[in-house]
């Protein structure tokens, strides 16, 4: 009824190319952005930021990064945790070496460094595909974690082997370190997420995205119409690494505050982000957000229900949580293998015709 294309005519290709061609979608997007920037910062407290908003925002960036590589370009990667560690340690080294430079620049540079490392480990993708590539990136995961644990230069020879984020400010307001305000860290991450999502969307809707998808869908045909497979795959690894590195830097500097490669960036991180994009929907920016939200919110939600409402002991609830999350993932994948993004698309198609069935 209210969600429809009829009467919403496009008179230029520019209008037809926009991200949200349907008017209702566009206003929904504007209102979400308005709420995120102008309403949420005034309402949230430490619990909301630390339990929900920061992990959601940061994992969204990581999921967008992995989605570009796996969902758009078809190159499976199990090295996300390792690449996030590169971002985190890169950011840490930059923060401690150049304390006078803005943290924002450090985060972006950390992304750039991760992009380069990602390209290096992506080089085998030119010869191997599928499971074999997944195993090659798995090697990256273990190697990088080993490297950051074993070479003291990376953690500045600290006795604990941990890295700790020093206090850094933007416009005089602390965003890292122990004395941060909830709204400041939230807004800092939100701005970066917004820019990352816009860049990812622009890249994937244009010629670069088409090259990636062409390689994913049929690499022989892609080459015959002129896609250079080397350039396409390497650029996917670079862009993906950039986003994953930014996510790693934020996770360490803003969210955790202190990190140790094996604990914070182990293989479980790689799988977590991979599950996010599979559940959210491969090859969809919206899916990256949906998947991140699902896997961040579900444990919090279950914990609140089991402990808060039913009054079960915490340890039992924690174990049950694992079982329920696992079972839900399996059920979900059977019911909708194309993820939340596909559910969303189907819902929108139904809405266009509602209340009529055809």
């Amino acid at each position, binding site marked *: 009824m209210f969600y429809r294309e009829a009467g919403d005519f496009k008179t230029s*290709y520019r209008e037809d190319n926009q991200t949200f061609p349907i008017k209702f979608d566009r206003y929904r997007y504007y209102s979400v952005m308005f709420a995120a920037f102008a309403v949420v910062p005034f309402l949230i407290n430490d619990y909301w930021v630390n339990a929900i908003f920061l992990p959601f925002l940061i994992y969204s960036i990581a999921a967008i990064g992995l989605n570009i590589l796996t969902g758009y370009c078809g190159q499976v990667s199990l090295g996300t945790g390792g690449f996030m560690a590169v971002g985190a340690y890169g950011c840490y080294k930059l923060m401690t070496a150049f304390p006078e430079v803005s943290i924002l620049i450090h985060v972006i540079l950390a992304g750039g460094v991760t992009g380069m490392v990602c390209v290096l480990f992506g080089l085998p993708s030119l010869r191997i595909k599928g499971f074999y590539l997944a195993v090659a990136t798995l090697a990256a995961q273990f190697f990088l974690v080993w490297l950051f644990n074993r070479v003291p230069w990376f953690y500045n020879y600290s006795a604990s082997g941990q890295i700790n984020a020093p206090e850094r400010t933007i416009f005089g307001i602390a965003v890292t370190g122990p004395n941060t305000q909830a709204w400041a860290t939230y807004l800092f991450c939100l701005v970066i997420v917004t820019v990352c999502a816009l860049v990812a969307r622009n890249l994937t809707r*244009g*010629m670069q995205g088409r090259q990636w998808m062409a390689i994913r869908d*049929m690499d022989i045909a892609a*080459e*015959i119409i*002129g896609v250079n497979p080397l350039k396409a795959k390497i650029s996917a690894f670079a862009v993906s690494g950039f986003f994953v590195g930014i996510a790693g830097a934020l996770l360490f500097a803003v969210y955790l505050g202190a990190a140790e490669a094996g604990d914070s960036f182990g293989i479980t991180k790689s799988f977590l982000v991979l599950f996010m994009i599979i559940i959210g929907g491969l090859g969809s920016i919206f899916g990256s957000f949906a998947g991140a939200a699902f896997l961040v919110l579900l444990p919090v939600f279950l914990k609140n229900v089991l402990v808060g409402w039913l009054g079960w002991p915490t340890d039992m609830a924690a174990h049950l949580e694992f079982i329920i999350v696992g079972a839900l993932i399996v059920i979900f994948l059977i019911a909708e293998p194309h993820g939340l993004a596909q559910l969303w698309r189907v819902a929108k198609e139904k809405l266009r015709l509602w209340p009529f069935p055809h």
Partner: protein
Amino acid sequence: MLDASDSYVTEDGRTIGAVVMEMKNITLRFGGVVAIKDISFDIREGEIRAIIGPNGAGKSSMLNVISGFYNPQEGQVFYKGKQRPQMRPYQVARQGIARTFQNIALFEGMTVLDNIMTGRLHHTKANIWQQAFWKGKAEAEEVANREVVEKIIDFLEIQSIRKTPVGRLPYGLKKRVELARALAAEPSILLLDEPMAGMNVEEKEDMSRFILDVNDEFGTTIALIEHDMGVVMDLSDRVVVMDYGQKIGDGTPDEVRNNQAVIDAYLGVAHD
């Protein structure tokens, strides 16, 4: 006999230009199997050139040599008067040679529009930074490419399926989308590998009309492989006949039809 640079006018009034591509003594082996044996032929600008032959004659291998998939062990390929060095397929595509495949090779996960837009790759100059921020060349080129693509969509009469994912389309339409993607590159030579395989009579008629129209309106040189003799004889200006990797005939449809070696290859020879 014509020279390489001569041009002539066909009965139906189209001008056939000079030789644009020449294959000289091409030999292609896969281990001990000789797929193509010492074949030479040329393709003239603006003509429709057919390659025919029984199954396993080496027609598709020949097309793969032209489009750079296979590198022949012997022989040279001349393109626009220059000998072509060994190239990867994407470099060949960049030179203005587009092709379709025998079994459809579309990007199933993308919409029809995106598939055809991918064909515009070489007419896109915006770098990754401009694309990331959708500024500068990126947006202008996207719109310019879209205009060209829309013309092709109109031409091939696929307006209604513009935004449909390719995976949902029936076979005949997929073939048409694949042709559209090849056309979007504005190629100087268009290679069609069995464009009518598996089609019914009406679909074949449609496709024949499109091939003739492409040749007529855009002046595109077309080289095609096809098994339907009626179609080949009607469409093409000149025909190469292959059998067991060798060339057994070359000429106008009428010449080929009356060539004894060709008749033997298709109908078989009596054993003495």
